[in-house]
């Protein structure tokens, strides 16, 4: 007895039903609000001005170098965080005992404001290592938790099937576990991308040779808000685009 809502909406309403159109409309509203705010307070540069500054920045070799430095650290943090998180998550998902022993500790660790660990990470990992380590800390947990939960909640019949066809552990991982947990895994990866950006950039605020975090901090200290906002917008935009693409992919998976 499915109760269908009769579609009485006209063209505009039907258009809004499309998520892309809706999201775009919201985006435009946000830009308009931004424009409005920028005319109210001096802290916020107007959207057009920000875009101009961003364009100018992106043609600057030094800025591109900063961008590459940050991208490299983010990439390393993401890679290490995902691999580590995936492995630990797999372990926790497969072994009830491991879960019993380590899960509460990991839940507690996840609840820690990781930023306060920067003073610990810096002496332990050094200048470049610390920001990657911070990115790893940020990226690790969503992957870990999602993989562990995904593996644990796999339908039992998959295990039976895998044993029945005598799959070796590697085959089980590739043909059974990974496909079975693809959705939570992707969701974890999506969060990991965003969070590794945040982790690395936050660390760069504290100490770094180069990187976009340094650019943000410098412009911030100068009160040069257009450059700061342009860089922040760039960071957010990149993280947003990647995470939305992953999210679309995740939604389309069956």
């Amino acid at each position: 007895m499915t109760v269908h809502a009769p579609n009485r909406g006209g063209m505009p309403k039907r258009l809004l039903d499309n998520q892309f159109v809706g999201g775009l409309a919201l985006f435009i509203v946000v830009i308009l609000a931004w424009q409005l705010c920028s005319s109210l307070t001096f802290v916020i540069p107007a959207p057009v001005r920000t875009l101009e500054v961003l364009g100018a920045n992106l043609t600057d070799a030094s800025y591109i170098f900063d961008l590459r430095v940050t991208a490299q650290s983010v990439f390393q943090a993401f890679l290490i965080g995902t691999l580590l998180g995936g492995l630990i998550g797999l372990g926790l998902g497969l072994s009830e005992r491991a879960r019993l022993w380590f899960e509460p500790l990991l839940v507690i660790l996840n609840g820690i404001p990781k930023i306060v660990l920067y003073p610990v990470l810096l002496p332990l990992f050094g200048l470049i290592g610390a920001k990657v380590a911070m990115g790893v800390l940020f990226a690790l947990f969503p992957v870990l938790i999602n993989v562990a939960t995904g593996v644990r909640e796999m339908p039992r019949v998959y295990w039976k099937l895998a044993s029945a066809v005598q799959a070796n552990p590697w085959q089980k991982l590739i043909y059974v576990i990974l496909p079975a947990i693809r959705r939570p895994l992707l969701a974890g990866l999506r969060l990991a991308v965003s969070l590794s950006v945040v982790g690395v950039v936050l660390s760069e605020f504290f100490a770094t040779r180069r990187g976009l975090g340094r650019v943000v901090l410098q412009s911030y200290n100068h009160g040069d808000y257009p450059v700061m906002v342009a860089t922040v917008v760039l960071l957010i935009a990149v993280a947003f685009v990647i995470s939305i693409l992953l999210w679309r992919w995740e939604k389309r998976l069956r």
Partner: protein
Amino acid sequence: MKPSGIEMSEVSVRFDTPDGAVHAVESVTEHVPDGSFVSVVGPSGCGKSTLLAVISGLQRPSSGAVAIGGKTVTGPDPSIGVVFQEDSTLPWRTVEDNVRFAMQCNGVGKGEQRSRAREAIELVGLAGFENAYPTTLSGGMRQRVALARTLAVEPEVVLMDEPFAALDQQTRIFLGAEVRRIWERTGQTVVFVTHDLSEAILLSQQVWVMSYRPGRILEVVGVDLPAQRDPAIVSSHEFNELHNRIWSVLQAESMRGFQQQEAARA
């Protein structure tokens, strides 16, 4: 003559889907006499449930109308009770609170809620489980809770949408007998949707056979069996004859529905 029972006149329901309009129900004009027990059978996807939804007021017909006791149905009403196919017990409420839920929504006084809930719970044979939570009950018991919730409001009409579809064979035979027993006691008008032909014949006074899209009532078959229905009756000659007669209509429809669905998928 005073209008009574359920009166359906030219009821049609069409849905707009991306693949074009679907005629779930097409020009159904039938009458369910007051206090009678009618079953609706038909191939899956034929619009049985949609028809029931129209009677309950949950679904507006695209054209035509349904009247109960002479009053046109415009929306859900306390005089119409519905038992759903899915488990509709609320897991955060006890059995008794589940049963009281419908009464709460209809402004029944607190004291009366309590006594009527106890009564209904007893009627469906769940006495002693008042304070249990649905998660601790079996699927059959949960459907009894849903039944009690519906009965406690004391509706004139009880609509059942494949209420036992998710249960195992023994439970459904047993619960079916219970429903029949309760109906004999309360004398409410019952419309019972099912895809199980034996169940329909065993329980009701009339069996309506519905066609695959567009959903029409192909045939109304009176069940001429003794009022006292023992499950053993399924092996009787009369029962078999009825079964064969309805099945011959139904089989052709099912085949047509099956082929259409396959074609749509290809």
